[in-house]
């Protein structure tokens, strides 16, 4: 069996890349995924989208991705339910107020639309918030959310319509090496030879790279999130609280969905959730939005991402193996997927590495070129 591109991982990265390759006219693209459709982090994430961060590297890349989000429903021919309800970031200290100032400067330089969020407007769009705690606030007016089930549904249907072969429940057991290059994937006794092989396997990516005998920096990292019982809209925009590493939004279904970071090491390959994240997230809610204290928590779940040294993605060719491409290390994977799909598809098809993608080179840790980004809400 022969494929032009064999993609390991049928999450949002794998499907978006397959779609972008097919959009360029490429045939015989095959996607392999060990789990079920939407089973990994692509089926259990924050679904939040914004176009800017504090570093130019992140802002150029995610600014581009955000523009692609705006037209994604049209390209796929399916409603991905991207809604520009706004994305607010709040600071509660001098330090994080500084991050907001830095972010606004970077975003202005990179042409990303964002602005300060004055207190009266903050009170209007987030009436439950205790604004006396807020030292600075900003908003991406065209930021928002895209529910993962709608995105994945649209991507899957669009891929199938373009003839991409999707193989869920299919474990890749090996990556075929032909000298210095990767030559395809093994699924048990079957070899699917391919001109290019892509690893987009989320938290499994380092282990999958091992199948090709190469290393991939980073480790699996468990994140947890929870949803409240539904109610009519009380949160306008998506909300990120920098000092607390808290993020949340209210879904179209009425549930407030969000999560936070707690100190500790969450390696481990289980989706069983635990108490600390739920309890700390709840405390952040009660402190920042006391009116929500009596709301009930409906469900809690965990997902596994691939955490790299700087929490930035690993995107591009693998330096130690020809024809092996990587789209891994994602902690803002939904947000970045449209850009990653476009730019990686271009790189695979033409060999050209776009300058927006270049800073996320797979071997940047080895090269001592880690990216310093302070406006993210994951942390070590």
């Amino acid at each position, binding site marked *: 069996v022969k494929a032009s591109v064999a993609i390991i991982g049928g999450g949002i990265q794998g499907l978006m890349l397959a779609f972008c390759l097919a959009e360029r006219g490429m045939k015989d693209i095959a996607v392999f995924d060990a*789990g*079920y459709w*939407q*089973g990994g982090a692509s*089926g259990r994430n924050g679904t939040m989208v914004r176009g800017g961060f504090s570093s130019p590297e992140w802002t150029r890349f995610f600014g581009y991705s955000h523009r692609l989000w705006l037209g994604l*429903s049209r390209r796929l021919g*399916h*409603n*991905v*339910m991207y*809604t*520009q*309800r706004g994305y607010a970031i709040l600071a509660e200290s001098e330090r994080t107020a500084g991050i907001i100032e830095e972010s606004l400067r970077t975003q202005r330089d990179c042409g990303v639309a964002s602005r300060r969020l004055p207190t009266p407007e903050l009170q209007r769009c987030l*009436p*439950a918030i205790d604004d006396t705690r807020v030292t600075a606030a900003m908003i991406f007016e065209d930021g928002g959310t895209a*529910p993962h*089930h709608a995105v994945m*549904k649209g991507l899957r249907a669009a891929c199938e319509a373009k003839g991409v072969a999707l193989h869920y429940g299919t474990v890749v057991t090996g990556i075929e090496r032909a000298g210095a290059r990767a030559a395809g994937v093994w699924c048990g006794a079957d070899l699917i030879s391919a001109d290019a092989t892509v690893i987009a396997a989320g938290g499994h990516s380092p282990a999958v790279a091992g199948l090709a005998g190469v290393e991939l920096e980073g480790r699996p990292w468990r994140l947890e999130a929870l949803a*409240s*019982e*539904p*109610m*009519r*809209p*009380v949160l306008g925009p998506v909300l990120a609280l920098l000092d607390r590493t808290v993020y949340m939004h209210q879904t*179209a*279904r*009425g549930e407030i969905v969000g999560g936070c970071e*707690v*100190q*500790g*090491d*969450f390696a481990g390959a*289980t*989706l*069983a959730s*635990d*108490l*600390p994240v*739920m*309890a*700390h*997230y*709840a*405390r952040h809610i*009660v*402190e920042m*939005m*006391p*009116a*929500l*204290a*009596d*709301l*009930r*928590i*409906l*469900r*809690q*779940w965990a997902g596994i991402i691939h955490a790299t040294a700087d929490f930035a993605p690993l995107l591009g060719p693998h330096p130690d193996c020809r024809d092996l491409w990587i789209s891994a290390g994602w902690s803002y994977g939904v947000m970045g997927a449209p850009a990653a799909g476009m730019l990686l598809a271009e790189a695979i098809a033409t060999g050209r590495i776009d300058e927006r993608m270049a800073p996320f080179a797979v071997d940047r840790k080895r090269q001592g070129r880690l990216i310093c980004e302070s406006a993210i809400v994951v942390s070590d």
Partner: protein
Amino acid sequence: LGRQAKSAAKPVTIFWNGRAIEAEAGDSAATALHRAGIRRLGCSRKLHRPLGSDLVLGLQAQLDGLPNVRLDRLAVRPGLALSSQNVWPSPGFDLLRLARLIPARWVRGGFEHPKWLPSGSRRFELWERVLRFLAGGGAAVSPARPGVLQSGERLAVDLAIVGGGPAGRRAAIAAAQEGRSVILICRGPSPGRFAAAMGEALPPLPAGIRLLAGWEAVGLYRRGRLLVAAPHDGGPALAIEAGEIALATGRRSLAPLVPGGDLPGVMDLPTAAGLLRDRAIPPGQRAFLIGTSAHDAIATRLRGLGLALAGAAEAGSVIRVLGLDSVRGVALADGKRIACEILIHAGLWRPDPLLSFQASAAGELRLAPGPLPGHIRLCGAAALAPEPIACAKLDDRAFICPCMDVAVAEIRDLAADGETHVEVLKRLSGCGMGPCQGMPCWDYLAAALSHLTGRPPESFGQPSHRGPRGGLTFGQAAGLADLIAPEDPR
């Protein structure tokens, strides 16, 4: 004796959508409303069909600007003012009820992405505003509500028991005799109410145990080492480290998977027994009993409690529950129609899998529970095998997930397209995404898939059971934040 005590209780006036209702002290709000003859309390998410007390959405209302208050877990107090939720513009003139006229097939596909929604950002956003309003159900919580962090407590005991029925009591007595420290958590305002209402002799609880009545065991974390429990009244929660855990949670009866099986008036045996005990079934309401075993004994007992029973039959013999807004009768497989206002089901009996699933399911798929850790045991009825669900006939109009309006027809069509993975079906249809979080819809989902494909129901697994299913408020959870450190996996 209970009746005499009740008769002496002072009446309490509560309000339902502005109407004054006489309740008895000690009633739950749901009991008081049933006694007053109010059948429709809540409705389904999309089609606004009235739902019965088996379903959480059939029991939720608004109280003081707070949505989703469970009426069966709320004790009456003078002046309690409750109102229907998911209504617009008002409970008395509710235009959203017109949604019942929408054919179920039009609103397939989760709540918010049926095929007819417009696509593209701007047009979708206008739609989304309407959707967010409709989907939200309860009112937006009032921003002016004072929020309180409920400082929780961490405690260690030798034995934690969940369930106050006969099996839970036996476990408590045995442990107390050995001098072990015991905590017993039960959902009702006092332990063993169902068994008592059914006339079962209950061994008295030993002195010295810590009894938490009106509490919910909301989660069993860390391979079953950490039990979290919270009171229904919103007070402080507990993080309990127990040397041993006894799950004596009994079994729940599933309403029949037939059209109308979710109507107000359909209720499980414990609910019916409780209403009879509290003399909350108005005279003149006739009932029909279905079940999987021991009908005669149950029927005798219910008649003894004063119920006008119109008959009894095997659970599988009901093919349709009649009625538009509440039960008016049942249609049986032999062609008979029986008029009644209440349908009581005593089986299929199946255990609630939440806690044992949480304690044992591991890995990255979590589609089935694993073996229970050695320190956890199932006691009494909870240890019995779930009764098999036979779907001899599968009526397209029956709702597998009544709260989210997922009908058999939707699952049948998805299965015909080759979708039989339960997690995928959950994401495509919204099945099990309502306030009960899949109990009992996922049991019915597996049974329906088995019927449609010929494969055994166990082969489909179940979507991951995820707590705390509304058993914990943000204020209660917040009070546990500094008590439990993140686990060190090394």
